[in-house]
């Protein structure tokens, strides 16, 4: 229990003193994760909508694979991205390994299937409602996807927040491709991992509480901005 209280105290002082290192790695955590989630949502939401409205031969298989990819082990993703980006790898010339960009790439791969899969489930039900009407109105596929995404925007926000949750707390992949380099690729989760292995439990815990607070703050901010959970709104 002593460690826990010291952790709370450490977190408190880190936040109150606006610790420079803490601010830097928190900002980087947010920057990497938000970039990754925005890209993943831009890919995953239309992908989910497309899957909801199209009937094709391997639909069932595609959806099963997508659902399975939700549980993609981050360490494996990190390893594959590492190999692709390493000097001898196919994308080695881009010089991206151990940069925040590499971390974004790994997180996009982890988060996109999650967002696409949850979006698909939400949009499938809406499409069942809209099917006859939108066919009757001679809508194009693009218009159908846009109408579904717009009208289900609140469920899709949940899908995106789930993606954010997974990305902000992820450590396996970004540790491998980012390398946890101080002032370059160190983020909250990799810092926690490092401090723990060095035995600095209080600091590690402090960073952990900051991370949890950050996740809650980001969710609240998005809900407030989009005014969900208010009467008479979807």
């Amino acid at each position, binding site marked *: 229990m002593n460690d826990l209280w010291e952790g709370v105290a450490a977190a408190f002082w880190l936040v109150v003193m606006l610790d420079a290192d803490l601010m830097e790695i928190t900002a980087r955590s947010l920057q990497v994760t938000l970039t990754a989630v925005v890209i993943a949502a831009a890919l995953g939401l239309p992908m989910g909508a497309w899957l909801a409205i199209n009937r094709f031969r391997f639909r069932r298989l595609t959806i099963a694979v997508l659902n399975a990819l939700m549980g993609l082990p981050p360490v494996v993703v990190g390893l594959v991205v590492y190999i692709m980006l390493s000097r001898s790898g196919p994308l080695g010339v881009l010089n991206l390994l151990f940069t925040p960009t590499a971390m974004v790439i790994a997180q996009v791969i982890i988060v996109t299937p999650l967002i696409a899969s949850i979006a698909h489930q939400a949009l499938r039900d809406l499409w069942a*409602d*809209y099917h006859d009407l939108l066919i*009757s*109105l*001679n809508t194009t596929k693009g218009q159908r996807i846009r*109408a579904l995404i717009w009208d*289900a925007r609140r469920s899709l926000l949940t899908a995106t927040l789930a993606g954010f949750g997974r990305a902000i707390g992820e450590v396996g992949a970004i540790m491998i491709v980012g390398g946890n380099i101080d002032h370059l690729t160190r983020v909250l989760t990799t810092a926690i991992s490092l401090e723990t292995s060095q035995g600095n439990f209080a600091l590690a815990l402090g960073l952990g509480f900051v991370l949890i607070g950050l996740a809650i703050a980001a969710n609240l901010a998005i809900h407030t901005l989009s005014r969900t959970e208010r009467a*008479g709104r*979807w």
Partner: protein
Amino acid sequence: MVAVLPLDLKAATVRRRGRHIIGPVTLQVKAGPPTIVLGPNGAGKTTLLQLFHGLVRASSGQVSWAVDMPQADLAQAYVFQTPTLMRRSVQDNIAYPLIVRGVARRAARRQASEAAQSVGLGAHLEAPAHVLSGGERQKLSIARAMITEPQVLFLDEPTTNLDGRSVREIEEMLMAAVARGTKVVMATHDLGQARRLAGDVIFIYNKGIHEHGPASGFLDAPVTPEAAAFLNGDILE
């Protein structure tokens, strides 16, 4: 505007997963006063309307309009038995068909607002569509169907389960549309409604067209015993 009617069906048959739903149907829908589709539940009224509109494809036979398909598609609208409301405001629901056709958002919303006023939904413009009552929902879907000024308007039992006042208001909307030259093709099982609106009647029984003729003749002196029994209020199976 090129006339899309008459609509011609030649031996059109619908089968679904090997099951025979309706047909062969051979008939012509002409411009003029409303065509009312009558018949017992499950006889195929909805399938016939959807076949007309193109929501259901003929397994064999032909369905053809006086113009080619893309043009015919743009000149018709369909009102479903259960109104499909989009998760949007009343105004945005009514504006949607215009937006689909490339009308600018602002102009579409202005037109939708006028349409909503004219059917008595003016007070609910910004309300989410799902808070409307049953009668208001159906008025919304008719206003939405009429916003593109279709030449042909299909309605599938639009007044089922509505109270008398809503039925009267909806019939007034339809008569106004008819007066503007819109062809109304409507399924109903309300014989009083058929009497009030019909120009001609299509009577469906046993998965086919059993009788088709002018309303006055059909409603007062049906030719077939089944139609007579149906009009009499007997139960047909």
